[in-house]
């Protein structure tokens, strides 16, 4: 039996480098910015410790199974042995030490990720982070650049070497913005705002997505991140400002109807913040459904069609519904439950 156990553990050890060699470096361990690289460092440190622990246990297990399996002369058998202060102390102390060694960099990184990455150059030090609001809607992403007064759907451009301060919220289900190459995820939640700092240090196109399950179209709630040189980024902003269509409230409200965005991506002049900031008003989405005549339907219903109203059928859109968002800091609803500041 024993001879069969050994290859099993060997198999596991062999599988590891094989898998690493077989495919390219996993995305998370191939960081493209300072946030992801802090996380990747922490992960690699922990993998080293964990592999050591695994190795110790595997070796001990193998030795014990080989040496103390039932055989004819069992002169080593000592049934009276059932405790040892020394050994027990050793294997209590060592894990404690390992936990402490891992806890220190963990806590340090947790605190460090709460702030924008440190600028590398003097000129970058003068720049504030780029603020982008990322709003999750079943099953699309809306990115809002408040200072540039533009909005995109399902893609975004960011300049490299400059921290991006994502203001996360959701129009409906709880989602999570995740761009593995740039750093870990954080939840988007309706009625509140969370902040995620990310930064790209290399020009490139990265995959981003919603990582937190939100139902039928979850799969397709993905987006591309284009990390550009500063100048290219500015150029793109100008292009959008010059050529993109105006965002109207009716158009925006239509985005709130659950579904995958048919056109793939889009860009607009103006932002939805002029009517609604979902982090301050969670009811808005359901009100918009009512206005448009959308009704949630049982997924097993035979007839799932919707009778949505046209813009000219809805008096609400004939009036000006702009709200004042200038006093942003004053009533932005911070988290007020356990664990939040």
């Amino acid at each position, binding site marked *: 039996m*024993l001879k069969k*156990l050994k290859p*099993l553990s060997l198999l596991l050890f062999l*599988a590891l480098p094989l*898998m690493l060699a077989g*495919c*390219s470096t*996993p*995305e*998370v361990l191939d960081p493209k910015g300072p946030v992801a690289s802090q996380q990747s460092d922490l992960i690699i440190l922990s993998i080293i410790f*964990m592999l050591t*622990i*695994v190795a110790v*246990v595997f070796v*001990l*297990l193998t030795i*014990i*199974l080989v040496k*103390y*399996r*039932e055989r004819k002369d*069992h002169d080593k058998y*000592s049934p009276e042995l*059932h*405790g*040892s202060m020394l*050994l*027990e102390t050793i294997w209590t102390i060592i*894990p*404690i030490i390992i*936990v402490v060694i891992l*806890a220190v960099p*963990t*806590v340090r990184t*947790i605190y460090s990720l709460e702030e924008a990455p440190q600028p590398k150059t003097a000129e970058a030090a003068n720049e504030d982070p780029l603020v982008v609001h990322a709003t999750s809607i079943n099953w699309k992403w809306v990115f809002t650049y408040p200072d540039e007064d533009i909005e995109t759907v399902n893609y975004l451009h960011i300049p490299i070497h400059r921290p991006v301060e994502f203001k996360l919220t959701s129009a409906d*289900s*709880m989602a*999570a913005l*995740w761009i593995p190459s740039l750093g*870990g*995820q*954080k939840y988007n*939640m*309706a009625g509140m705002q*969370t902040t995620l700092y990310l930064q790209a240090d290399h020009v490139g196109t990265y*995959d981003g997505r919603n*990582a937190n*399950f939100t*139902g039928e179209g979850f*799969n397709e709630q993905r987006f591309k991140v284009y990390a550009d040189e500063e100048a290219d980024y500015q150029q793109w902003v100008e292009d959008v400002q010059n050529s993109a269509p105006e965002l109207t409230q009716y158009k925006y409200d239509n985005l709130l109807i*659950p579904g995958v965005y048919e056109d793939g991506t889009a860009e607009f002049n103006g932002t939805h913040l002029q009517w609604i900031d979902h982090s301050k008003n969670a*009811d808005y989405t359901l009100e918009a459904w009512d206005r448009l005549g959308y009704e*949630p339907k049982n*997924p*097993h*219903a*035979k007839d799932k069609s919707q009778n949505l109203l046209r813009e000219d059928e809805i008096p609400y859109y004939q009036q000006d519904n702009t709200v004042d968002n200038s006093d942003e800091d004053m009533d932005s609803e911070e988290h007020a439950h*356990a*664990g*939040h500041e």
Partner: protein
Amino acid sequence: MDLKWNEFIITGDPLILGAQISILLGGIAVVAALTYFKKWSWLWKEWLTSVDHKKLGIMYILSALLMLFRGGIDGLMIRTQLAKPGMEFLDPQHYNEVFSTHGVIMILFMAMPFLIGLINYIVPLQIGARDVAFPYLNNLSFWTFFVGMALFNISFIIGGSPDAGWTGYTPLATNEFSPGPGQNYYLLAIQIAGIGTLMTGINFFVTILKMRTKGMTLMKMSMFTWTSLITMLIIIFAFPVLTVALAMQTFDRLFGSVLFTLQGDGNPMLWVNLFWVWGHPEVYIVILPAFGIFSEIISTFARKQLFAYKAMVVSIVTISVLSFLVWVHHFFTMGNSAEANSFFSITTMAISIPTGVKIFNWLFTMYRGRITFTTPMLWSLAFIPNFVIGGVTGVMLAMAAADYQYHNTYFLVSHFHYVLISGTVFACFAGLIYWYPKMFGHKLNEKIGKWAFWIFVIGFNVCFFPQYFLGLDGMPRRISTYLPEDGWTGLNMISTIGAFMMGLAFLIFVYNIYYSWRYSPREKTGDAWGLGRNLEWATTSSIPPHYNFAVLPEVTGLDPYWDMKEKGLDQQKNTDYKPIHMPSNSSTPAIMSALMGMAAFGLVFQWYWVGIVGAVGIFITMIVRSFDYNDGYYVSVEEIKETEAKANK
């Protein structure tokens, strides 16, 4: 709920149609067989109304095996859908239903009843008792579990299954985003089963504290009994949280409250918190008894007392306390303050310390022992390395800053399958094989058992090890398909192959039950393995009589039965019989639970009159029960003599 008549039964899906037909045919076959062999009254009198902890244990285990099959089919459907990019085997809606039911079934209707079944059968024997503290309640617990399970399982053919994940996060699970009966099934089925679990918690907690035989002090209890005791304590503290949370979400969905909703300042995150305040202790509820089972088996087949018994006890108690202080690690990414995340990172890592201590104690139990590689021992040995992999990746997840990258990915999926399968599932197999002769009077065939073991363990690693890498490569959990450019194809294919190997191993395991029933030699003594250490092996016959012990054993040390054998004491020589008081069977629990099922079914579809009729029925059965003055019967000395003389003939 405005459900059209033709939407009540789910139609239009060939997979579901197949299931419907096979359920129908299976049902007809069972009813026909019972009628043909005239077994109805036997079934009702001997089993369904029985308050015997051993029979209830077996019924729990049979239901759990059935659910392992159902949940396993769900798992294979998930893996089939993910084998290649762009598969169209399941559409997203169907996929969501399948993984949601998979999770709920495996944790609540497979792992829990399997372990509770083993606890039911073994713990009263191990503490030298004749039954549990509240035998009637025990039967009621079983029936509420069974009805909850049945209700949950019919959802995929009637009305549609829940599709918001086993976590049922709000606001996704509220009416606006999950319309239809699906999520109601989740809420009501788990609610009913949960009541049963809570009652089991109280029942066994009292049983272990109050019904131990003479001489069995707390520190002489077997490790399985210890872990069961602590598990029951966790159940008593954790399940009420689930009960309340489910009731709150039920109110949101059925009666229009706004507790977790988007509208009306609802607080969806409260659900997430409540769920995990129960959910994390829950994962320890399903691992602690497993630890107990491995402790028994390893010490039996190494022929040594458990190493560092006291440290083992201290570590499970520590784990149980810590398990209530870590729930936030399930949502480090919620934007908590750095202080909160640091605190919960450290408490979570701290749990790995007592867990690590246990691993070394198991290893050193075998040190200088005489290890024999029986199938239950093989499962227990395979547990150690595999669980260590699951445990160390747990520590990695506990490092909050890194968890932002693992959360919601296949890395997490792999972690919890490593701990749950190599921990809980291996333990269920190991325990079932180990105690099989106690339950059925014969062993399972070792050769076939070893085939099942190797195929399962290898398949398990082939299935889940690649998932760590998929997670690190950015594959989120719960996606129903992916693109070729994602680069996840190869590892997913490997993973699917592993899953089917596990499926094959399960079939071999079940075949072994049949094969051994036909061909295994019947046991002649109570100590089937010849190496028994605890009192369950001290019974006269292989399968204990309904009163368990003709004369209650007296305990002088740890591993009491081993101790007796060493000292040459023969438990069976003592023939100083006295009449034994035993509880009578009762039919009200089955009826009461059926009425609960009816009421809940009505609520699922918002047919309130059905709910009300069911609720009134429940109260009537309660009143009937309260006028039941039957407080058991005596087994006469003659009958005991007769039974004992017949034993092992």
